[in-house]
């Protein structure tokens, strides 16, 4: 029985280039990769006017203005050639490696840059187009997505189809060559600002998995209404989407009729792995803020405080190591399997623990809101704490990830 994701017993390293020892375990970045990191770091130093935390801290920034800042920053990143890094050039990408993409993501979070408004599109929709779309669709949609000229939102979850996504009921009915979509979508991140949605709808009510199709729809049309949905953080980045006979054109179907479930799953599994692989680099910044706060309060002198703080560091390093192992596998052409679910559990559960420890250790200082307060630096632990509650729910809940691991990695029986 093999339980290991990369089996240390099986792997050999006989194909090493001559003149080098057969060091198969090699976690060093290459000279070219290090040079790329330097270049990206310098780019952020020269092009990022203010870190995102300062924008959030500025009381004059409205929610719409913050989105505008994100949009314009994504545009400059795109013009500098930093988006779609590991996508083929013929589809609007940069033909670079997955390692370069992760290096970019690490520098992105290190610089505390404004989050990409099109992160959902780039993480999930982009790969779906690259793997399953037509050339015409790639040409039409990828460039404006990368430049944030068109913001994308995801239409997967429904009020009665969350973890059990295949229970979705949103109906697609043929109308000539095209389709008319009727139903309701929810937890639609960036919905209030989006121009397009990629959406799963049912083309066959009898076939649970094979009756789902992947559609693309413009939101600016009769028959679609998006209402903001306020989250417990106070933000309304979420939306609810109501569709009543909305038009989806035939040429805007990704893959074939009935392939939607398969496409969504392969893309989700792929993205789950790469997504947040830069998480530990972000946590470095959070941990540094935590250390600064504890030093100021004097709490850093206490042994119990130090032990709890250090456990976060140890865990962050273990997760970074697991991410490096996955990155090495990806960069050698392997497809992520169950590691992706481990990765999802790792970053989301860690973020929740980190935010809890920050509240416990910083005490009242963690309770002060920094957003909109005029404070120019520092982590808004209230926001981070509250937001961290979403990680184990979004993108396939922790329970779903554990189901996947139990069945696919451990081969435990289904009932």
């Amino acid at each position, binding site marked *: 029985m093999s339980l290991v994701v990369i089996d240390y017993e099986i792997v050999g*390293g006989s194909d090493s280039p001559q003149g080098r020892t057969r060091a198969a*375990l090699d976690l060093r970045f290459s000279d070219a990769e290090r040079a790329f990191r330097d270049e990206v770091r310098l780019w952020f130093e020269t092009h990022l006017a203010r870190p995102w935390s300062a924008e959030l801290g500025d009381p004059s920034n409205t929610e719409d203005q913050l989105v505008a800042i994100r949009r314009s920053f994504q545009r400059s990143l795109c013009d500098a050639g930093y988006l779609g890094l590991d996508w083929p050039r013929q589809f609007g990408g940069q033909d670079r490696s997955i390692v370069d993409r992760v290096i970019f993501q690490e520098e992105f979070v290190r610089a505390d840059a404004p989050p990409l408004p099109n992160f959902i599109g780039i993480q999930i929709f982009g790969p779906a187009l690259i793997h399953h779309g037509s050339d015409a669709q790639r040409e039409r949609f990828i460039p404006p997505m990368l430049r944030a000229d068109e913001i994308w939102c995801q239409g997967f979850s429904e009020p009665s189809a969350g973890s059990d996504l295949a229970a979705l009921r949103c109906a697609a009915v043929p109308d000539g060559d095209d389709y008319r979509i009727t139903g309701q979508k929810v937890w639609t991140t960036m919905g209030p600002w989006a121009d397009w949605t990629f959406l799963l709808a049912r083309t066959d009510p009898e076939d649970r998995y094979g009756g789902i199709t992947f559609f693309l729809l413009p939101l600016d049309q009769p028959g679609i209404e998006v209402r903001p949905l306020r989250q417990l953080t106070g933000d309304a980045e979420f939306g609810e989407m109501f569709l009543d006979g909305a038009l989806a054109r035939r040429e805007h179907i990704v893959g074939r009729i009935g392939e939607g479930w398969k496409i969504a799953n392969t893309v989700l599994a792929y993205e789950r792995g790469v997504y947040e692989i830069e998480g530990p680099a972000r946590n470095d910044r959070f941990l540094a803020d935590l250390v600064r706060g504890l030093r100021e309060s004097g709490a850093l002198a206490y042994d119990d405080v130090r032990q709890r*703080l250090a456990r976060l560091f140890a865990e962050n*390093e*273990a997760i970074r190591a697991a991410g*490096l192992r996955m990155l*090495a596998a990806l960069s050698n052409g392997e497809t992520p399997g169950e590691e992706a679910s481990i990765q999802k559990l790792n970053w989301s559960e860690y973020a929740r623990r980190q935010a809890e420890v920050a509240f416990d250790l910083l005490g009242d200082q963690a309770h002060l809101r920094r957003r909109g307060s005029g404070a120019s630096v520092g982590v808004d632990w209230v926001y981070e704490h509250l937001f961290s509650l979403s990680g184990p729910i979004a993108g396939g809940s922790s329970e779903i*990830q554990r189901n996947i691991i139990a069945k696919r990695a451990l081969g435990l029986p289904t*009932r």
Partner: protein
Amino acid sequence: MRFELDGEQSLLQQSLRELLEKESSLEQSRPLMESSAEGYSKSFYRQLASLGYLGIGVPEDRGGAGAGYVALAAALHAMGRVALPGPILDLLEAIEVLRRLPGEEARRWCDRALAGDALVCLAHREPHSAREASPRTRIDPATGSIAGRKVFVPFGASADALIVTTDRGLAIAPRPDAGWDARPLETVDHAQRFADVTLAGPAVELAEGEDARCAVEGAERVGALDAAAFLLGMMERVLEMSVAYLKDRRAFGVPIGSFQALQHRAADMLLYTENTRAAVYRAAWSCDCDPESAALQVAAAKAYAGDAARFVCREGIQVFGGVGFTWEYDLHIFYKRTKMLEEFHGSTRDQLEQLLRVQGI
């Protein structure tokens, strides 16, 4: 960028795994743990020595194989899978001290230990002393006699020599003909033999001051890495046993592994095991190739492995239910060794503190 063992390392691990399954399976080693004085097979240790397994990480000019720390971790990983009893971690740590020291005496004991001729262990804990406090054990350099008391001395009653931390540095004390005044300590891990040793008699100084401190610090880092890799092997084995049981054992007419509550426990066991695997081999790689980050990575790996193994071995007992709580089943062997390794070879507490200090926190 690659995260795999190379051909030689995996060959080494594979042959060692086969040897351990053949010569030191739990079926063979458990009776020794429970009823022999030493708790392990001395002849098997001599076999390990003669095959070169004690010198994997030791440079060639000090009599080892110079195969590096990734290879060493791969070996300890294999040993953890059978919860190899005896002073393996203590012996390897003592060898790491000796091979770092100049002088004939250190070289002679190092050679003997590597050859399986002598069991040498490190005696550094003293009663009621903080870790940083300088030892109260004294050596008189003029007469070469040592006096002091050390606690939790691994295999202190049977070791051929002890490397002793003293007020001046490090000394080696060969066991006197009549033995030391060594009181056996009964601890949580019944396979481990600790003693409370009152030292008296001849000893030879190995190093003083900074040299001694550096040698111990370097050896303790390797010791922590070894323990983390050993913990990884134990977790891996407990997970395999648990998954097999979950598939096999039936209740309510179905395999218990079909129950989601148990599936989720098993999924978390895999997560902790895989994260530990990544952390341990990354730390080993740092020791070989990235020395600036080695202190941080080893401390993180040992602390994480301790917490992770605590979870995995505890959940293993839970998965097995009633039989998991019996003496007959092997689960408690892994659980007890985990408890021991959380405290010794770099306690979780010390590793966590170290993790902050190396970052200037």
